[in-house]
């Protein structure tokens, strides 16, 4: 107890969350003639009592966060060759992942622990912080040096890694909720946006490394076991999470189907999507990323198209127009695919006639907005919630994270995303992705 007391910070009073007095106090029937010398009854939920990290962990964090680290590129991810990997390659991949991920976690912990105290004691943000610390400690507890040395250790490593990936699945909505609850009081909007930008982009990279190794591991063992040292033929076109024969059209149609279903659920009708340009083209990219981005963009375009058609219909009804002219005419959404330099640049333009974005909104659209949750803005948030709910799990319901996050994914490998609005007509989104170009000689094993 004494240890705990002297470790508590001086700002003890801030530990108590700001909330109204518990009901028992308010409705007490005892008379107040007796002097009230007793302490107030315990609060309904115990406040977070932050415990400091162990010295060993702290040292490890300080050391690892100072080691060099860089953004993984698509070529980095395929350097071990296509699956099934040979044992040496699998072990090499595991070793590299084991080496790189703790550094990245360390930097995240550093960033989190430098946030204002009051923010990190928010239960949501604190849980995320604890997640990072536990994951870091889990990896640190693995033997150092040349680990994993054999397939058993590699399997153990894969299990640990898998657990970490699962733990951090819902980081974004939880962080968002936490910031929404307490962020605006203690941090400026730009600071929060800056932190989230850095954090979420770093998160993309860390998950990329982890998921790539896990996918390679799974694909190798799916084929039975690691291939013998004799070079094998790439059974299919996946290298971990990268698809080397990815068709943007297929991903577009997949996203379209998903968003359209939600549209029908919500509005009873849906816009069509026309695809032109290089419809049969193929490239090498991560289908998961592409699908996320397309879903976000189509979600915006579809919703805008329907909303503007509904508004037009309402206006026609108000003017007394009946019959065929009063039917709902939802404008078509057009997607154009362009490929250049053998798949190095994948440009997608999504053009809708949903009325465009007003200049004032255009300025806000890239912010990680955390003030619209629970707002009574009705239809827009309903729709977003439906979509994100259907995605299962990570609901970024109505928090306005979709566009900045999509842009973060696009820019991760050197691409870009730009919005151009003709307010009163529609919006064009220009998405540029930097794909993987097959090196000469193919995606050969490089060790």
């Amino acid at each position, binding site marked *: 107890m004494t240890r705990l007391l002297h470790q508590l910070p001086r700002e003890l009073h801030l530990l108590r969350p700001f909330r109204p007095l518990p009901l028992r106090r308010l409705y007490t029937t005892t008379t107040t003639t007796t002097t009230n010398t007793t302490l107030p009854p315990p609060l309904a939920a115990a406040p977070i009592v932050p415990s400091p990290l162990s010295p060993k962990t702290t040292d490890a964090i300080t050391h690892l966060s100072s080691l060099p680290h860089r953004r993984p590129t698509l070529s980095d991810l395929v350097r071990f060759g296509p699956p099934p990997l040979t044992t040496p390659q699998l072990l090499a991949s595991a070793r590299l992942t084991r080496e790189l991920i703790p550094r990245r976690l360390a930097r995240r912990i550093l960033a989190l622990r430098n946030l204002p105290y009051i923010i990190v004691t928010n239960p949501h943000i604190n849980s995320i912080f604890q997640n990072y610390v536990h994951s870091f400690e889990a990896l640190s507890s693995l033997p150092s040096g040349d680990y994993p040395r054999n397939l058993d250790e590699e399997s153990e490593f894969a299990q640990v890694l898998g657990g970490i990936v699962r733990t951090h699945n819902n980081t974004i909505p939880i962080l968002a909720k936490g910031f929404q609850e307490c962020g605006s009081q203690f941090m400026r909007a730009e600071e929060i946006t800056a932190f989230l930008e850095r954090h979420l982009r770093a998160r993309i990279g860390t998950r990329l490394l982890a998921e790539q190794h896990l996918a390679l591991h799974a694909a190798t063992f799916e084929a039975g076991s690691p291939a013998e040292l004799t070079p094998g033929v790439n059974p299919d076109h996946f290298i971990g999470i990268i698809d080397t024969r990815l068709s943007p059209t297929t991903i577009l149609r997949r996203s379209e189907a998903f968003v359209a279903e939600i549209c029908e659920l919500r509005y009873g009708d849906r816009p069509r999507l026309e695809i032109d340009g*290089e419809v049969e083209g193929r490239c090498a990219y991560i289908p998961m990323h592409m699908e996320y981005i397309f879903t976000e963009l189509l979600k915006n375009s579809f919703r805008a198209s329907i909303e503007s058609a509904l508004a037009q219909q309402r206006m026609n009804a108000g003017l007394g127009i009946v019959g065929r002219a009063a039917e709902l005419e939802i404008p078509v959404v057009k997607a*154009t695919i362009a490929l250049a330099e053998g798949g190095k640049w994948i440009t997608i333009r999504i053009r809708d006639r949903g009325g465009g974005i007003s200049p004032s909104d255009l300025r806000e659209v890239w912010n990680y907005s955390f003030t619209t949750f629970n707002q009574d803005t009705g239809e827009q948030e309903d729709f977003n919630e439906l979509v994100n709910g259907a995605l299962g799990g990570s609901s970024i319901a109505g928090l306005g994270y979709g566009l900045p996050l999509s842009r973060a994914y696009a820019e991760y490998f050197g691409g870009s995303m730009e919005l151009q609005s003709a307010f009163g007509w529609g919006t064009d989104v220009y998405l540029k992705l930097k794909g993987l170009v097959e090196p000469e000689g193919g995606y050969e094993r490089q060790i």
Partner: protein
Amino acid sequence: MSTISSRPLLQRQLMSMRCSNRFTTTAITNTPSIIRPIALLNTSRHFPSSRRHLSFGQQTPNFQWQSSRALEAWVEKPARPVSLRQLIFFGGRHLDERRLLDSANYVRTELPTRIAHRIRDMQKLPYVVVTNPHISYVYQLYCEAFDSFRKIKEIHNQDDNDKFCAVLKQALHRHLTVIPKLVMGVLECRELMSPEQLDKFMNTLLRSRISRRVIAEQHLALTDTFHSPFHFPDSSPEHPNAHPDFVGEVFLRCNAKEVVEYCGRLTQKLARKAYGDNAPVPEIIIEGHLDTIFPYIPSHLEYMIGELLRNSIQATIERHYNPANPEPQQVPPIHILICHAPQHIIFRVSDQGGGIQNSELENIWSFSKGSKRDTQLQNLAMIPALAATMQELETSGFGHSVTRKDGHESSLTRLTSRPPNLKLGIGLPMSRVYAEYWAGKLEIHSLEGYGTDAFLQISKLGNKSEQLTLDGL
């Protein structure tokens, strides 16, 4: 050579100063014979690139050192920007003698102020840049213009105004060749300054140039209106006016669709001339808010849309047309969207011309960066008349879609109707300067491998003032 006494006073002062100036004397006597001053019309073809900036010989810097007291007084004054709405208000039905003289005096003081700022900018450039013959020619021109404008006394009556207008007309005409000269100068000097500095210099200069020509041309047009036999100040609305929809240079009822159609016909015709009658010319399809009407200066709008269409048509033909194939071919059309937003008019030009290469994308707005600048310089140099005057470009009498009958030529007329294979490489940055001058914007999005989209946004209400400096006002 004109006699000494006929030179402007300033030059005479300078020449006497020069004799006592040790630096210039040694510069002249030490000049090697091969780079003695040569006639301006020589080309730069024969000299290696490192001596590019000396191509025309070392100009004797007799007019470089200006007496700066007069300049100081004017440099200190801030420019008073004007808005499109003010320009319109100044004219129209309410144009009477009082207003006309007010306009004259505004122009009388604004022009020297704005030129003074630009002269000061040029004086601060590196010596080696301003001694480039093209740039020093422009500098000389500006100094003379400044000198003549600052001496004009206050205008009290119509006679004064007429004299003033004569001076204005002459200056406007003399300065028609500034743009190509500047462009050539900047290209020749592109290894002497950073591209960002050069671009900033060019943008500022061009922006200021537009502003001076706008207010000058506006005043001339107002004077013409005032003198026109049909103008009756304070007349009732029913009285016919010769140009009811024009207030000076501003056309109150620019019809977006008509402007686009006109520019489309013009550029299609020029393309046929350049690529031959067999070449398929892309169709131009217009959609959007087709009844959009707004006030603007037609020559500006036509120049910008013309440049964008020119680029689109050229890209489309070059990508899809195979001259070796005798069969008639089709090329994909160009789609233009006109959007009437609450505060802007937006033109979107979408083509399927193959897009712009990613590596070149950052250079399209620069006057000096990029890989094709040597060719561009050669193009410019191969047409000596372009460097000296603009007379050579009389390809046809297209004029403007909507002009006053007595409209005088603008520097844009020639540029707008120049033949398409005259690739000057300045269309996009120039159009952007024009767009941003009235607080609009121009953006390009490229789908490499497919085509390009250009977005031109114009401020509708004309309430926005001129943007005289690059960081607003």
